[in-house]
């Protein structure tokens, strides 16, 4: 037996030892990988930090963003930045898992209310110092009015605005021309135009509220806001069942009953909805500020209405989401995060100069560029719509973490589907109020 125990022989105990050792090493490696990735990310003189970005437009945008971030040259001792795209699908889980395990980004774009949510949970590095710097170097004054202050909470600025996602009314010019219609300016005119369109087989209130499509929610909130209502009252409390909201939804119900709303739109995905716009079945309706780009309508047949419609009480308003760049506490260097964010804000004009983004810029200097002004629809949105824009907090004025629970919620989806289907406004609003209330408990 002894001669068999040569150097290559692995005894049973040896084998077990190796096996257990390998298992333990794997376990330790797995356990340590999350904890150490932040440090691993910070190497070199100032190390590196992670910047996570979303697919805000066509892939060309992310290619340009990656190139822009790669060109960032930090001051001595500060970290450089790496660029990573996070897909919208399941982005909530991606961010949550990363933030919880301290493997998340140092700086990121993301959901419109994400910064407020993570600030409440203690993961956000407030931007007060950065905003102060902006005030001292003049950058603050370059922001469009009210945009920076929208990021302010009692504890500080949770983020820095970088682009605006607006909802506006669109119409199909050739169809209007063919039917001798003029773009409406009031709700009454809209209803009248919609009735004519319906008689000719077109829909005058294009919408979609199917799987993964949230435009229907935005449309309903915008209709409320356009009538001087909203999901919240002036004290920023959830207050859905109000006379103005009921009136707005009664208007929507009338449109549904008059077949001005496509009855199948409650199930339209973004692709199906875009197809309806492209085919001309949708001749008028509310959509993002870049419907033409999103739906691939390149022949110039669709255009935004001249401005927000005037409601029955004289109100004019549209909806806007203030997308922002947020900084996280988990960073190799807070000074590095601030330096990068400031640099990014200063250099992001390249996206609009190259016509890569469908969102509206937040800087006056970008709006003033000839390249942006050549993008007539976006330019019109800034000039004619943005001055009337209100956010999800209307009629209140404070963005909060709770808005993340409302935006995209199943409760609001069910409400929008009910209204697009011509359901009873008061009952639907009462159901919405009672189903959203627990989220604010």
């Amino acid at each position: 037996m002894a001669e068999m125990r040569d150097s290559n022989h692995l005894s049973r105990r040896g084998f077990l030892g190796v096996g257990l050792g390998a298992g333990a090493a794997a376990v330790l490696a797995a356990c340590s990988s999350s904890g150490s990735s932040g440090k691993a990310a910070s190497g070199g003189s100032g190390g590196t930090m992670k910047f996570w970005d979303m697919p805000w437009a066509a892939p060309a945008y992310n290619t340009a963003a990656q190139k822009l971030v790669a060109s960032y040259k930090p001051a001595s001792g500060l970290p450089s930045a790496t660029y990573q795209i996070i897909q919208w699908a399941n982005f909530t889980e991606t961010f949550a898992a990363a933030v919880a395990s301290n493997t998340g980004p140092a700086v990121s774009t993301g959901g419109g209310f994400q910064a407020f949510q993570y600030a409440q949970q203690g993961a956000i590095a407030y931007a007060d110092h950065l905003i102060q710097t902006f005030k001292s170097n003049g950058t603050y004054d370059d922001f469009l009015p009210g945009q920076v202050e929208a990021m302010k909470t009692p504890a500080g600025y949770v983020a820095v605005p970088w682009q605006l996602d607006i909802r506006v009314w669109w119409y199909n010019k050739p169809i209007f021309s063919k039917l001798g219609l003029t773009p409406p300016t009031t709700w009454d005119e809209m209803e009248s135009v919609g009735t004519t369109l319906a008689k000719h087989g077109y829909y005058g209130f294009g919408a979609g509220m199917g799987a993964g499509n949230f435009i229907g929610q935005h449309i309903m909130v915008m209709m409320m806001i356009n009538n001087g209502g909203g999901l919240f009252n002036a004290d920023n409390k959830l207050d859905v069942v109000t006379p103005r909201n009921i009136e707005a939804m009664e208007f929507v119900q009338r449109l549904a009953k008059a077949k001005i709303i496509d009855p199948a739109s409650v199930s339209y995905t973004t692709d199906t909805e875009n197809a309806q716009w492209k085919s001309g079945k949708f001749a008028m309706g509310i959509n993002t500020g870049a419907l033409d780009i999103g739906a691939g309508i390149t022949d110039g047949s669709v255009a935004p209405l001249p401005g927000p419609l005037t409601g029955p009480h004289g109100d004019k308003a549209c909806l806007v989401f203030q997308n922002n760049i947020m900084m996280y506490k988990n960073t190799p260097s807070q000074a590095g995060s601030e330096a990068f964010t400031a640099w990014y804000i200063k250099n992001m004009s390249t996206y609009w100069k190259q016509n890569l983004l469908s969102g509206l810029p937040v800087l006056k200097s970008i709006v003033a560029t000839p390249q942006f002004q050549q993008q007539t629809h976006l330019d019109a949105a800034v000039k004619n719509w943005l001055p009337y824009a209100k956010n999800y907090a209307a009629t209140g004025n404070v963005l909060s973490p709770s808005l993340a629970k409302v935006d995209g919620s199943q409760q609001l989806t069910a409400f929008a589907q009910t209204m697009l289907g011509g359901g009873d406004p008061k009952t639907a609003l009462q159901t919405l109020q009672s189903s959203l209330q627990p989220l604010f408990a």
Partner: protein
Amino acid sequence: MTSAIGTTKQASGVTTPQRPRRAARRLDVNKATMLALIAPSVVLLLLINAYPLVSAANQSLHNGTLISSGSFVGLDNYRSVLTSPQFWQAAEFTLIFTIVGVFGSWAVGLGLALLLQTDIPGRSLLKVLLLLPWVVPIVVSATSINYLVATPSSPVPSLFHALGLGAPLFLANPGWAKVTVCVYKIWVSFPFMMLMASAALSSVPDTVYEAAQMDGAGAVARFRRITLPMIARPTYISWILMTIFCVNDFPTIYLLTGGGPISATTTLVVLAYRTVFQNFLVGPGVAIAFLMTLALVVVSVVLYRQIRKAAFH
């Protein structure tokens, strides 16, 4: 000298049970070796399965967020879930979806498996074609179905209209959406049932059928008295598997209807997802998932008992 019972008689004449002690020691060593051998697997399994399970159970008893554990709330999350009308609405549709999905796909699958037992021309090609709904990724087939039924001018509603059957809104009407989702589930699942049934049918000896035929049993009697009992075990297994597939089926619903319209097609798994990732109520969402797991365990145990009975018979 060794006695029959394994004791050793030593020179002193004292009998000691050395052999059993040694054997017992060897047994202990073997046990230890075996335990050590399976230890890495057990550790991995615990890490992969038990840890998330315990962690999730813990979350269901807290009012935490996606990134923090929150404070202990006992069974409050379960209480709020079980008193919520949305939960019971989702539970009801989950039950319908599962029953229709399991038995619908089984009936179609078994029928086609029986058909493929016969000498029909092009049988091999047919087998391959019939597997396609199972093979094609759900994302692709759900998108295709969406194209076929989404708008009033889509091919299927147009066909209905041409046949004078009205213009049903297959995804926009709550009732039709339920039907569409269930039919789609049967369509994507029957190939699996067909494969299971084909394998089971091939194990039934022809001689049994021949004997029954000689005794004068007709086709229906042979199916009821021979085929069904003899494929009972694999059938119960396929039911268990399909029940699990249906209850846990997230993509079918989420891609086709998103759980709508007006939550009509929301199943428990979709509700759990929405509760956690759209309403950010982690505790209640995980509680829903745990209640689903509990229900699945009960159903599985009942069906396993049926398998044992079938084996006994």
